[in-house]
């Protein structure tokens, strides 16, 4: 029996399930570094003599690969168990950072795209879905809180990745060397330690294990929480999968509306300086991270469908208020509204695994989640395209920059409206799709 196999990770009786979320957080907070890749844009551009636009393509490839690899390798992840997957994720992600460092040394943009984007992106996808299935099995009574904790780690990864890279580059910089290469190598080493730590401590529950005193509450939730199981190959052919895909895609697209242009928006709408714009981005990052835990934990109490209704309805109201905050120059109200919007953006990511578990059971929920993540990749492409396109067209039409965002905000309301409709249409999965002999592990 291999140390890496699923069998080797089955917890012995008496094992505390509270040791599992830290394993997930350890992996997620490392791969969450992807959100902070932009800190390398200028140094890498300077090292390679390339425009930052071309360097940033590596980030976009990485996000696309996150969705693609999660969708492709989801079934393998379910078969192999969390430890082997976390190790594979560590090899790909940290290997990607090392290849990027080599790309800096050889001044090869292609190596950076292939290293960080392609190889590192596969590490992101594997790492993102690796703990999901395990966590919902350990916490059938609180799946939202458990997956929320892990995905909060991903949000936290950006908070760590950006200042860490900056500090390391400052430490290693020696003109004309920007310190980027040494920083990447150091980060690869640090992240590998944490990811391997996560892989080492992770455990899966025994097949017949359940929390003390736990009984599934089917009747109380009007059938919106199933005790049956649906396989990944069947799940993605059901309307529920595509409705939830739309829910995630719309929620992410709308959040990107603020997140992608946060600093510029604050400066344009309120005429503040660069430092305050950056401060605004920092504050949003905290709400992005905190919202993941708070909202997904709330979903355990009020239900998944209800919490997404809150994201969409409250989100649309808050977006509709934003033009008013500019008109009245009420910066405090603007910050409160956007912080809440971003907390729900994070919450949308964190709540979806538990929603999938409610709909399709725990059998292959990690693999189903992997396929659903393609919605994120899609939103990461269409969101900024829509937002930047609309903003640019308004500016080109002669609208002052301060007001040019208004139409974008109304567009976000529309996207959230589509998400709300999709969410309201979600019904329990037809029993004909259930796996006949429901496997428990």
């Amino acid at each position, binding site marked *: 029996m291999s140390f890496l196999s699923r069998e080797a990770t089955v917890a012995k009786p008496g094992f505390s399930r509270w*040791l599992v979320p*830290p394993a997930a*957080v350890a992996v997620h907070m490392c791969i969450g570094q992807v959100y902070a890749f932009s800190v390398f844009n200028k140094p890498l551009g300077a090292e390679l003599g390339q425009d930052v636009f071309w360097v940033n393509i590596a980030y976009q490839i990485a996000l696309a690969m996150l969705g693609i690899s999660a969708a492709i390798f989801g079934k393998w992840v379910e078969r192999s168990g969390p430890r082997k997957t976390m190790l594979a994720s560590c090899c790909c992600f940290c290997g990607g950072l090392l290849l990027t460092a080599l790309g800096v040394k050889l001044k090869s943009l292609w190596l950076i795209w292939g290293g960080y984007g392609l190889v590192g992106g596969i590490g992101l996808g594997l790492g993102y879905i690796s703990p999901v299935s395990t966590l919902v099995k350990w916490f059938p009574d609180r799946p939202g809180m458990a997956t929320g904790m892990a995905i909060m780690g991903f949000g936290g990864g950006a908070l760590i990745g950006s200042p860490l890279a900056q500090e390391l580059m400052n430490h290693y910089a020696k003109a004309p060397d920007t310190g980027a290469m040494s920083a990447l190598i150091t980060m690869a080493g640090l992240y590998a330690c*944490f990811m391997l730590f996560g892989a080492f401590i992770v455990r899966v529950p025994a097949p017949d294990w359940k929390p003390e005193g736990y009984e599934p509450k089917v009747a109380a939730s009007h059938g919106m929480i199933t005790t049956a199981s649906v396989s990944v190959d069947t799940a993605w052919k059901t309307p529920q999968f595509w409705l939830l895909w739309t829910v995630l895609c719309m929620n992410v697209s709308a959040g990107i509306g603020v997140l992608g242009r946060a600093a510029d928006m604050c400066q344009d709408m309120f005429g503040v*300086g660069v*430092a305050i714009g950056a*401060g605004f981005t*920092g504050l949003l990052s905290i709400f992005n991270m905190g919202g993941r835990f708070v909202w997904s934990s709330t979903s355990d109490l009020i239900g998944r469908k209800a919490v997404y209704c809150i994201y969409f309805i409250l989100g649309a109201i808050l977006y509709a208020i934003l033009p008013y905050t500019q008109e009245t120059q009420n910066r405090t109200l603007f910050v409160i509204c956007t912080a809440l919007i971003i907390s729900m953006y994070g919450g949308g990511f964190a709540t979806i695994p538990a929603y999938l578990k409610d709909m399709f059971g725990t059998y292959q929920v990690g693999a189903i989640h992997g396929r659903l993540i393609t919605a994120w990749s899609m939103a990461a492409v269409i969101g900024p395209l829509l937002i930047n396109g609309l903003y640019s067209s308004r500016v080109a039409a002669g609208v002052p920059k301060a007001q040019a965002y208004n139409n974008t905000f109304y567009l976000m309301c529309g996207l959230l409206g589509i998400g709300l409709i999709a969410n309201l249409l979600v019904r329990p999965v037809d029993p004909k799709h259930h796996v006949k002999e429901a496997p428990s592990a």
Partner: protein
Amino acid sequence: MKAVLIWIIVSTPLLWGVTQSVKKSLPLFGVEAVAK
């Protein structure tokens, strides 16, 4: 004890990251950026 130690190992970098973001956001509230 083991659980506490594991949680401390994992949450320390997160807390450091949050602290850095809080420092970064201070100008938003009219507080001067912390000098290095």
